[in-house]
């Protein structure tokens, strides 16, 4: 088998999975909720829209819940979690010698194609995570660990769709 450390100092994926599972469990134990990522970005969208056009923001039904008294502390919680993720990722990247500004892409496509695909993919993910009521972390991973139906449906739909169309966008990757 691959030892503990493989390519470029990555840890063994099963070890990574065990650690991630224990962290998720610890998070459930402390907070009663799991891990999340897209929620914090949603929170910042709400904040920016409010800065730019406060009246419009208050009239936007989907964002209105983030303003005023119903302001859910969970969302601020997610913002701190994300700041931690940035710090944690940076530390691990520094230890593994992976800190570098770069556009990661297949040799078959240009930098611009990669950035365009990343932007388009991000837009879709942002929209999808609203319908899914969470992303891969908040809906799929956390939801399935708690055995919620939504989490499994989202997980199967994400991975099923990605497999179904992988062939058609293979130029982007292989």
């Amino acid at each position, binding site marked *: 088998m691959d030892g503990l450390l493989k390519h470029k100092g990555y840890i063994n994926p099963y070890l990574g*999975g065990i650690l991630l599972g*224990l962290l998720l469990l610890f998070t459930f134990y402390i907070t009663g909720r799991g891990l999340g990522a897209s929620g914090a970005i949603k929170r910042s969208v709400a904040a920016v829209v409010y800065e730019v056009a406060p009246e419009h923001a208050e009239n936007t039904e989907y964002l209105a819940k983030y303003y005023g008294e119903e302001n859910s502390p969970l969302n601020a919680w997610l913002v701190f979690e994300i700041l931690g993720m940035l710090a944690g990722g940076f530390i691990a990247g520094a230890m593994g010698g992976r800190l570098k500004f770069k556009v990661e892409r297949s040799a078959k496509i240009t930098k611009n194609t990669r950035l365009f695909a*990343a932007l388009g993919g991000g837009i879709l993910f942002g929209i999808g995570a609203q319908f899914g009521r969470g992303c891969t972390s908040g809906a799929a991973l956390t939801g399935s660990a708690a055995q*919620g139906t939504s989490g499994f449906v989202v997980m199967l739909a994400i991975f099923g769709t990605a497999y179904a169309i992988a062939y058609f966008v293979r130029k982007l990757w292989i």
Partner: protein
Amino acid sequence: MGPLIPNGIIDAGWSYLVAFIIGIAFGLIMESSGFSSSKKIVGLFYGYDFTVLRVFFTAAFIAMFGLLYLNYAEILDLSMVYFPETFLTSAIVGGVIMGIGFIVGGYCPGTGIVAASIGKIDAIVFLIGIFIGIFIFSELFPLVKDIYFGNPMGKSRFNELLGLSRGMFAFLFVLIAVIAFIVTRTIEIRVNNKYAAENHGDQASAE
């Protein structure tokens, strides 16, 4: 008995510090597992690197069994553990859109944040995309409300839907995960040998 913050055992004032520390651990684990590389992440869709599947399934079943055990040992009150209500149409639509975004963009929000933290410019652009996507959704929300609230199933648990106990469901989940680990390992070796034979060693090394 947990959960500690909802039960007032840890004061809510500490919760942001807790969030930050949990975030650090989350970022450390994901980055050291290779989730800061889009090429490595999408490997599972082309068969050359199943790291994501290994990490994801292992984490899910560890947490699943852990929750059952902590509940059994009366350390954690499972009824207080949050999971979202199910709106079937919306969950499927959302998952399909996210699936397209995943294979086209190469990241999901969590992995995108971690990749951005080590300087991946494509990840930063991906995060800007998510921001725009959420903005578009919030503007168009009145038009898609019927989908968003379509087919409500309430606080539905998947094991109950299948008529299984939580323990039996967790056991079957592990069984499926272990089979997936074995099968995908075989596929991975075969695909990488094929790439190597075609002299595409750069892809086989799964950056």
